[in-house]
């Protein structure tokens, strides 16, 4: 599904990615974890083509992403902070994104799911953080793409919406899709993900199931396993 080879990226003097090799198979939920500033978002943005790597190749569904932007038809992306043009109405934004990508009727179901009907005629600048995130989720899930990338999907969501989000993720997984998630909420990661990818200082430190990680670090639970990686590496 996604193959990354020897990926390097630096911003000025700050080397963020230092040779990432990663292969992600089709189907399943993969959590990308790591301390703040470890390069999670940079890695994800590289896959999306928003960050241009200094070195290395990235293939999505067998296509080198350097060649064209068409591969992004296969990706649904949820950005970390929902920044939308503030003078646009929710309705207009959804219509615009559909116009730019392709038409779909999924949005109606998702709007109902997240109870967004009362906000459709409001401007995006006047919405609360949580409501913006719901709009963000609708925009992401309304296209039926094989690869879904979620950057901090839980930000600002209330408990009910969080449950709906988890259900939504499981439904998409059942369709055989590949889902990449970054999150700082360890309980969320433990609950939803099949495999985790741990990034430390710009490299892949660990890739495998949560059970493997527990065995490797000799810790009884997931949160402590992560903490032990961090303390042992003084990150």
């Amino acid at each position, binding site marked *: 599904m996604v193959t990354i080879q020897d990926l390097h990226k630096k911003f000025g003097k700050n080397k963020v990615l230092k040779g990432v090799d990663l292969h992600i198979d089709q189907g399943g939920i993969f959590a990308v974890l790591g301390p703040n500033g470890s390069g999670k978002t940079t890695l994800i943005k590289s896959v*999306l083509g928003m960050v*241009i790597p200094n070195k290395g190749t990235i293939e999505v569904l067998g296509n080198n992403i350097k060649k064209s*932007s068409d591969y*992004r038809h296969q*990706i649904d992306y949820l950005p970390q902070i929902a920044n*939308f043009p503030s*003078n646009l109405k929710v309705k207009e934004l959804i219509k615009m*994104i559909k116009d730019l990508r392709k038409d779909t009727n999924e949005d109606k179901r998702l709007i109902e799911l997240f109870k967004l009907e009362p906000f459709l005629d409001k401007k995006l600048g006047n919405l609360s953080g949580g409501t913006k995130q719901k709009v963000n989720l609708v925009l992401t899930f309304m296209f039926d793409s094989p690869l879904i990338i979620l950057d901090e999907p839980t930000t600002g969501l209330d408990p009910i919406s969080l449950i709906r989000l988890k259900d939504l993720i499981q439904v998409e997984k059942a369709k055989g899709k590949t889902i990449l998630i970054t999150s700082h909420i360890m309980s969320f990661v433990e609950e939803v993900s099949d495999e985790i990818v741990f990034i430390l200082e710009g490299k892949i430190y660990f890739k495998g199931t949560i059970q493997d990680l527990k065995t490797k670090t000799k810790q009884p639970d997931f949160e402590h396993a992560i903490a032990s990686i961090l303390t042992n590496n003084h990150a």
Partner: protein
Amino acid sequence: MLKILKYSFYDLMRSRWSYVYFAFYLLLGIVLLFLNNDLSKAVITLMNVIIVLVPLIGTIFGVMYYYNSREFTELLLAQPLKRSSIFLGQYLGVALSLSMSLILGLGIPFVFYGLFESSAIWDFSLLLITGTFLTLIFTALAFNIALSNENKIKGFGYAILLWLFLAVIYDGLFLMTLIMFEDYPLDKVSLIGTMLNPIDLSRTLILLKLDISALLGYTGAVFKQFFGTSFGLIVSFSVLIIWVLLPVWRISIKSKKKDF
């Protein structure tokens, strides 16, 4: 690209500033016509305003739009769209809506005053054409500056400096050079110097069209000889087109290499 252009254009058409700009030109046109009571004279006064103001508005609007639409841009970048079409679409959206405000804002009062029966129609058209060129050029330059500077304040600073340089400082330096080297034949130098600055070039083009080149003395005669011919006119417009194409080309190159 056309879809991006459409959305940027709509976005701007709904913003207050496009109307303020439009209303300003409308008012300027009406006031000048009433004060001068003569089409040709109004065209001359207008030229002086347009030559300085259009580049300034193009620069400021371009920089402002780029920085204000960052969120929109990031949203678009994750969609299956080519980078160059995102940025060129936005650029054309800004440049075209500004040009439209200019053409309609000035055009309407002049048409009602009886432009079509007047001999000033060609002078006036030339004024609008150069105004549109200046908008295209300075919006593109502004986008270049904004693309190269993450920091808003720096971006605004450089943009204003650029305008100041081309609108005011360039002329000063140019004049100083002419005075320093007045013992040498300077016809060619001054011709080339004028060509290299889009603001000077536009001003010269309009002045010569208005047949007041006698005011310019000997140099005016040389200029008339060059710009008055169709060859000179073609060269001038080619230079203006190059002034548009170069920054637009850099927008597409620069946008391909930028991280978001």
